[in-house]
């Protein structure tokens, strides 16, 4: 009995040790990824800085990265940076949630019922090519210039790619798997939630990432509707006051924060799709 327990505990320690080792490997791999991923941006920044110092780019058009960084730091010091980032991130996330929710409901519906597709899909597809700026006057008219109209505007941007990918995912689900569900007497809702959604998850997640990207893009249009804070506001301000360092600061902030939110989605994607039988890349 004792011997057995001892054995069990060795096994456990071993497992533990190997797990810890795994984690270490994982962490060092993560660091490697980050380093590799930073190479090109850093090279670009250095080239840009050098060209700016050599005055190949005139400063009033394209200031050096150090100047732009100075602008961002300045914003950080007077405290307004966090306001801009905070309010924009809030708007994007709220719009993202709203847009995704609507897209899931409508997308499952349209993907699943032929009649629904014939009724709604043509119109939705037509709306898809209306530019964000075109919505601005209509949104101001319908919803005024408060937060709701801004969030809805972003939700519109998020909606389309999510919707499109959900439908394509649903259509692509293997008939064979759906039949298993039917044999097990699942109703339509269960079919969607237990088979179709998981099976179309890869496509759905791509849609989410596309949608989030578009959400960030729609921020500018949203913040044209009477905002006095936010990254989109900063961008437009920079354009109106001909301040390239403000424009570039807002671009860089967009890129960084957009990348950050996308990275979160990417991690979720990797977790959620671990079951895919895919080739380990060379």
């Amino acid at each position, binding site marked *: 009995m004792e011997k057995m327990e001892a054995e069990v505990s060795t096994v456990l320690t071993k497992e533990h040790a190997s797990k810890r080792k795994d984690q270490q490997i994982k962490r060092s791999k993560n660091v490697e990824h980050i380093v590799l991923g930073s190479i090109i941006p850093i090279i670009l920044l250095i080239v840009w800085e050098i060209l700016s110092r050599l005055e190949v780019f*005139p400063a*009033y058009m394209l200031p050096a990265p150090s100047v732009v960084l100075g602008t961002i730091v300045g914003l950080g010091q007077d405290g307004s940076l966090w306001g801009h980032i905070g309010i924009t991130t809030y708007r994007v996330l709220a719009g993202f949630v709203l847009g995704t929710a609507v897209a899931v409901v409508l997308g499952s519906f349209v993907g699943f019922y032929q009649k629904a597709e014939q009724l709604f899909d043509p119109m939705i597809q037509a709306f898809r090519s209306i530019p964000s700026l075109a919505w601005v006057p209509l949104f101001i*008219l319908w919803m*005024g210039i408060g937060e709701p109209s801004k969030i809805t505007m972003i939700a519109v941007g998020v909606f389309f790619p999510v919707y499109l990918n959900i439908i394509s995912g649903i259509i692509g689900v293997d008939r064979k798997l759906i039949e298993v569900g039917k044999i097990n007497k699942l109703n339509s809702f269960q079919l969607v939630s237990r088979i179709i959604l998981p099976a179309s998850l890869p496509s759905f997640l791509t849609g989410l990432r596309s949608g989030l990207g578009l959400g960030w893009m729609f921020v500018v249009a949203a913040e*044209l509707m009477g905002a006095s804070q936010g990254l989109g506001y900063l961008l437009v301000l920079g*354009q*109106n006051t001909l301040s390239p360092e403000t424009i570039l600061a807002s671009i860089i902030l967009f890129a960084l924060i957009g990348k950050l939110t996308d990275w979160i989605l990417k991690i979720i994607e990797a977790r959620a799709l671990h079951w895919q039988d895919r080739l380990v890349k060379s």
Partner: protein
Amino acid sequence: SSSTSTEGAPEKIRMDYAYYSPTSLVLKEKGWLEEEFEAEGIEIEWVLSQGSNKALEFLNSNSVDFGSSAGAAALISKANGAPINNVYIYSKPEWTALVTMPESGISSVKDLAGKKVAATIGTDPYIFLLRALNEEGIPVEDVEIINMQHGDGANALTKGSVDAWAGLDPNMARVELESDASLFYRNVDFNTYGFLNVREDFAKSHPEYVNRVIAGYEKAREWTLENPKEAAEILAEEASISIEVAQLTLERNDFSEAIPADVHHDALIEAGKVLQAGEVIDANVDIEEITSDLINPSFAEETIGD
């Protein structure tokens, strides 16, 4: 006068502020309106307008009660049926001029023939360009007008993509200070004025409050005249521009006349004709009538009086 038919107090007053209207910034910064209406529990809500067209959009959609715009923009909107009145002139700005780079070889309006000129159709700089060409007798067809947003026009000019630019402050002040761009044609009188507009509805139901807002603007105007340096600082701070640009911009604003009068009326009619010729305003609109509808000096006259 109109102050007799008050319908009670509004719950709140929604004001716009804009970087092209320095007095609006001063007023917002100093909080004089808040002070004025605090006792009655009326809230003041400030909304930023990024441009004349935004201010008018906000007015039209009942998102603000007072909006600042260029006179010409207000006229176009009015011609489209917008229910607004101009009740106050916040400045006589020289915010637009024709700008070029030294290597373009342009020194007068005459040289523009056959050249590319960037301008934003429908805005004050565009009207300015048309009137300048008209003045010098150059047909519009001889000039290639390229429609761009103001900031983009400045970039295109410094990059050399266009030969001249119908500029707008503060962009114009900035290119003037930081690159070698020069203003080769200036004419204060071809600028339409800075109009403070109010929604007709608001003016009808709360005329007394219109007067009190105008009084607030007056206070800001007087303060700005007395403290040009501090005003420039406020502008620089709010609009995130350098103090030099802010000072240059302020210098080009004349705050002496605030009551809408005949000069404004005439300037707007001239602008309206140009816009009609440029097909921005419909040909069958009666410019004089529209202008008279738009400009309503009674509030300012009553408040400022003499």
